[in-house]
């Protein structure tokens, strides 16, 4: 049962990720992204990380994609007129495929296949709320703060880049 569900959610996630990239319509892409997020949260459920699954839906599916759609609708973006494959895409695809092959080959050579951990040996950190919160405030305190700071800087950068400071008076 869990195996079937895993394959279902995995295909859902991969399929919708491909759809995000290949869709010309921005709204279709955003909704495919939404389906992909729900697939990922299904995978979290299969790993017994109920808390992470719910947070995934609450934060990403519930708020972030809705914001994406808000922006798409506000700017009323039409599908791009770009060519599906340019020269740069072909080169990038070639390099990406080569890297993927090299990585997979190395992994298979070194370990003779991917290692699989016993289900019981993995700590279900995302399952218990208190455990998760405890780790956030002790072991992972610095990474959490650093990531938060990076996001803040990114946000400031976006505001500075996107806001036209010259000629603000006429807008008013």
């Amino acid at each position, binding site marked *: 049962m869990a195996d079937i569900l895993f394959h279902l959610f995995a295909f859902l996630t991969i399929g919708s990720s491909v759809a995000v990239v290949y869709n010309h319509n921005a*709204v279709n892409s955003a*909704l495919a992204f*939404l389906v992909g997020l729900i697939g990922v949260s299904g995978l979290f459920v299969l790993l017994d990380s*109920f*808390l992470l699954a*719910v*947070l995934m*839906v*609450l934060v990403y*599916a*519930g*708020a972030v994609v*809705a*914001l994406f*759609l*808000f922006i798409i*609708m*506000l700017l009323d973006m039409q599908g791009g007129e770009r060519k599906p494959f340019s020269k740069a895409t072909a080169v990038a695809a070639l390099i990406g495929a080569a890297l993927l092959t090299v990585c997979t080959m190395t992994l298979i050579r070194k370990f003779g296949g991917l290692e699989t951990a016993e289900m019981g040996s993995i700590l279900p950190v995302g399952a*218990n*709320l*208190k455990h998760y*919160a405890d780790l956030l405030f002790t072991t992972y305190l610095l990474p959490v703060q650093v990531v938060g700071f990076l996001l803040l800087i990114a946000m400031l950068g976006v505001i500075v880049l996107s806001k036209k400071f010259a000629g603000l008076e006429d807008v008013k």
Partner: protein
Amino acid sequence: MIELYLSLPIWVQASLKGLIAIGLIIPIAGACSLAERKISAWIQGRPGPNRARAWGLGYIPILGPILQRLGVFHLMADGAKFVFKEDVVPGHVNKFYYYLAPLVALVPSLCTIVVVPFGAYFDAATETLKPLILADVDVGILAVFAIGSLSVYSLILAGWASNSKYPFLGGVRASAQLISYELSMTLSVIPVFLWVNAPGPEATLSLFAVVESQSQPGFWGGMWFVFLMPLCAFVFLVSLFAETNRQPFDMPESEADLVGGFHTEYGEFKWSIFFVAEYAHMTIGSGVFVLLFLGGWNPLPWVPLEPLIAGLPVWLGGLIGASVFLGKTFFFIFLFMWVRWTLPRFRYDQVMKLGWQKLLPIAIANVIFYALAIALIERA
């Protein structure tokens, strides 16, 4: 009967329970639409719907006229009308999303029932109170918020797929409004769970635990959270109005300036699904408010349910618990309608200003205050 039920496979049991819950919530949503018309009429000093009379039923001596005056037949006529009306689909819409939007509206609001307990019964074997709930999960309130937050997509999709100006504006407004108020709503329940979870190895976000902690003995134990944290309750209630798109926060719909907002291009059954979803959302939102702040199934503050139903048969105790809970929920549905027909609407900029500049700072200050207070109490 019970043996037969218990002998069924677990998934059949679960589906049966789910169907019963859905079978309960949809008639409530239908009755709400009738109540809305009757209450609006009462507030505006007019009789309201009282003309329709079913062939046969309306001629029963005393009951018939009473039902007719209550407008019950209007509800049936409405339902029949929605089913039999011609299904018109405007030519300019995006068909796939146009059909998808009403479903996306209904599914999340019906899914949230799974994690909301709607009563409690006394289990004689273990001598404890057990919740009447479909799935008692540990993440309780987060699951309600997570699934509930998905309903914004129905408004966005409906607005976008309709491919005309007014629905589009409604959809844009919906996405901005619902995200803004979700923040204050989530922040406003944090003090409740800080209070419920004592320091220790286990923590829970389950709604049953919240009601349990409001049914303890003693002055502080039996106090409903609405008295302990009035500001949280207020912020939650205001956000709930905004999240369910009820007046005075009906920006996505705004009949006055956007015709019908996101559902302008919708008609017949698809429109009625939006309507049912709104009422279902409202019912479940009121239920969550009752559980969080008004003691759930406890009949009065400082009067827990458990000793009252301990000696009674299981079904009667469960019925009493569920009735108390539903009674409080219905009062809140009434409050929703009361506010709708009493207060004037906000303008859109006022909605945004209220959400970001008033409600959110209040909610954050509230969290900090209660976090400090609870830390001090626990240290003492």
